[in-house]
């Protein structure tokens, strides 16, 4: 029996069948900030990946790979500047993570395919 199971240690407004940490009315604190930073780290890493791949494509003299990497990098940079500041307002309870997550995963898939194409180009030389 833990201390939380004893009625004397329970908060007055806490229902007996509710998990001690499950308090939907409580403000999320720094969780929104941490999530925003996680988005920025991801966008930054994706742009660095685009730069590395573009540089590699220039060395390989593969213009389509270089153009694809540059286009993806610019799209990510513009999208990050426009979309990320609009998100993660703690009071925005009706937000959906799905569209941006889809874009992030799609960008990584595109980058992976371009990277694989660069590797295949090296293999065939």
């Amino acid at each position, binding site marked *: 029996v833990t201390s939380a199971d004893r009625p004397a240690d329970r908060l007055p407004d806490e229902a007996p069948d509710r998990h001690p940490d499950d308090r939907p009315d409580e403000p999320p604190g720094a969780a929104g900030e941490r999530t925003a930073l996680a988005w920025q780290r991801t966008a930054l890493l994706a742009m660095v990946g685009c730069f590395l791949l573009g540089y590699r494509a220039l060395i390989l003299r593969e213009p389509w790979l270089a153009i694809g990497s540059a286009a993806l990098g610019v799209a990510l940079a513009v999208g990050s500047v426009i979309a990320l500041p609009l998100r993660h307002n703690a009071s925005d309870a009706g937000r*959906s993570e799905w569209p941006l997550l889809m874009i992030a995963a799609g960008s*990584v898939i595109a980058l992976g395919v371009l990277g694989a194409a660069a590797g295949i180009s090296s293999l065939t030389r």
Partner: protein
Amino acid sequence: MVEPSDSADTADRRRPRSVYGVGSEPDPRWSMANERTALAWVRTGLALIAGGVALTSVAALSDLPTVLDAVAVVSCLFGGLTAVNGLASWHRAERALRLREPLPAPTALRWLVGFLMIVAIGLAWYAITQAPA
């Protein structure tokens, strides 16, 4: 059969409906933690791709065998799959949070660890056998 929640009224147009159409609104902290976990998977995928590009670049600069290029191709493709898994795991976990069900086990983690182990052992073996005497 789970009915749509009271919060999922006509004004709630969030997609996908397979997630937001079921259960009730969870604590926003858990939702955001789930989002950060998905982003961590996406970043892992990006790191695998960056590693693959770095490997093929080093192989070309140092005139190393083409087997390293093959490893780089596999690493880039696995990075893309890792990002897809991040998306799928977010979907499963958010649904479980809304339905107050236990979170699904991170099954893709064993695939990632297995892949990294194989690549690490392979590259270590290559470095040992190709080292100058």
